[in-house]
């Protein structure tokens, strides 16, 4: 089973594409995920995913009416709708300043409802499953190209504005005194997040996007001693889950998002348990030392 996976990996185009996509997403997800965690926005990723799904369903619907361009590239509308979803969240957050989570409930429900309606209108409810749980094995080369562009833009933003992004994320009030425009930052970050979420949707599925962004970071936080080390460890965990997940998706024919996220969670559990055991050992050692 594993051998045929390796040979297919290098002989089948679809496997190469899946590998390339997985590798790039493996970097992208925790890179943005760490900021998402620091800013306590984990649920926003899922909310944006639901709105991205609206874009995809509308795309499928329009193509069922004969606009074939939309059918070939549903992700474009996915990205546009994701950004609209992000702006809607901001809008509702300002309307319910003391109950900010209400805004996410409104947008996530609206997203789920609209998606279901347009999938049905397009008579495509059968393809809903792959969008819910991910299908990295069937990605097209245009998708690879989109991920590459996204990774490139996000990397450039991080290289140029990384300092500001991290400073604001840890402490929004201090940003003013560092000469950073917080409002502008929030909008740029929301747009960046919307795009990354749409791009992740294909591989992870709507229901598992935030897991791919957040869980490797949650594991990395247990081990990391600095921002840098935490991010690097998270990326390593993320790559590991993407690769093993890809193999599982291929050999067991299960959705890729589900496979990747199960590995992610296994890593988190192993890290948490190991840490607990090490801490317990340390405590008993100290106790023993005290007894002497």
């Amino acid at each position, binding site marked *: 089973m594993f051998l045929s996976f390796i040979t297919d990996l290098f002989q089948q185009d679809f496997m190469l594409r899946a590998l390339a996509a997985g590798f790039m997403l493996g970097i992208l997800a925790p890179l943005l995920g760490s900021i998402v965690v620091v800013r306590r926005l984990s649920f926003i990723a899922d909310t944006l995913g639901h709105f991205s799904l609206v874009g995809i369903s509308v795309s499928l619907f329009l193509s069922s009416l004969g606009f074939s361009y939309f059918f070939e590239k549903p992700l474009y509308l996915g990205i546009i709708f994701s950004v609209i979803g992000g702006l809607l969240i901001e809008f509702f957050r300002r309307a319910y300043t003391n109950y900010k989570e209400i805004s996410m409930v409104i947008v996530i429900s609206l997203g789920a409802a609209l998606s279901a309606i347009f999938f049905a209108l397009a008579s495509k409810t059968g393809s809903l499953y792959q969008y819910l749980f991910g299908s990295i094995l069937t990605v097209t080369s245009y998708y690879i190209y989109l991920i590459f562009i996204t990774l490139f833009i996000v990397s450039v933003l991080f290289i140029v504005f990384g300092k500001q992004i991290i400073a604001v994320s*840890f402490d929004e009030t201090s940003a003013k*005194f560092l000469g950073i425009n917080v409002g502008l930052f929030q909008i740029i970050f929301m747009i960046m997040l919307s795009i990354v979420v749409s791009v992740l949707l294909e591989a992870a599925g709507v229901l598992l996007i935030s897991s791919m962004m957040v869980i490797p970071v949650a594991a990395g*936080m247990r081990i990391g001693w600095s921002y840098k080390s935490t991010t690097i460890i998270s990326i390593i965990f993320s790559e590991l889950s993407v690769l093993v997940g890809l193999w599982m998706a291929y050999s067991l024919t299960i959705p890729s998002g589900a496979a990747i996220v199960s590995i992610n969670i296994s890593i988190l559990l192993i890290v948490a348990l190991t840490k607990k055991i090490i801490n317990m050992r340390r405590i008993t050692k100290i106790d023993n030392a005290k007894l002497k």
Partner: protein
Amino acid sequence: MQIYINNLTFAYGIKTVINNLSITLNQGDYLVVKGKNGTGKTTFIKCLLGVNEVKPGTIFYDKTDITNFKKWTTFGYVSQSLDNFNYEFPITVLELLNVSSTKGTMPQDRLKLLDKMKIFDIQNQNINSLSGGQLQRVFIVRAMLNNPKILILDEPTASIDKQNKEFFYQTVDDLNKNGITVILITHSDELEHLNYTHTLTMYDDYTNSFSIRNEGGEA
């Protein structure tokens, strides 16, 4: 930079917390804002920093009305409970200072400040492993990083132990002697260590009094 506050009044809803507050400070002054808990000291600072909107009354920085003021980088600010910070995610002291430095500050400046605040040794430690006092000093270094003209400290000694307190006040004095305007908020009456030039006292009934320190004596 000069600070002119004229007839500042501020209310949370119908509850007026600051009444007719007027003060003028020149560059290099040292203002102590004192008063019991809940008398409006932090509220006043938030007005100064443009967080609370000033409705009746005016604040001018030099000749600029606060509503048009943009040069917030002239301020260094350490908030009261440091609770605006998102803790738990690992970040080292040096990493935090690096991302908080704007153009023009050198890495050795950061180290010098850490040394001055006696926290040089913890520069590679995770923020989350520090004690309250260490954390407070890290945030003071951060506030000083970009060479502010005005330093605002909201109850900075709350979690600093006694022997470090005197040393801390000494450091603030040194900064003040170098020409930085200092606004220090405290709820204690122990002002004997402080070389302040002005006091603003806030009272339980939300009134206030401003005074200039007499030569050599108590204000």
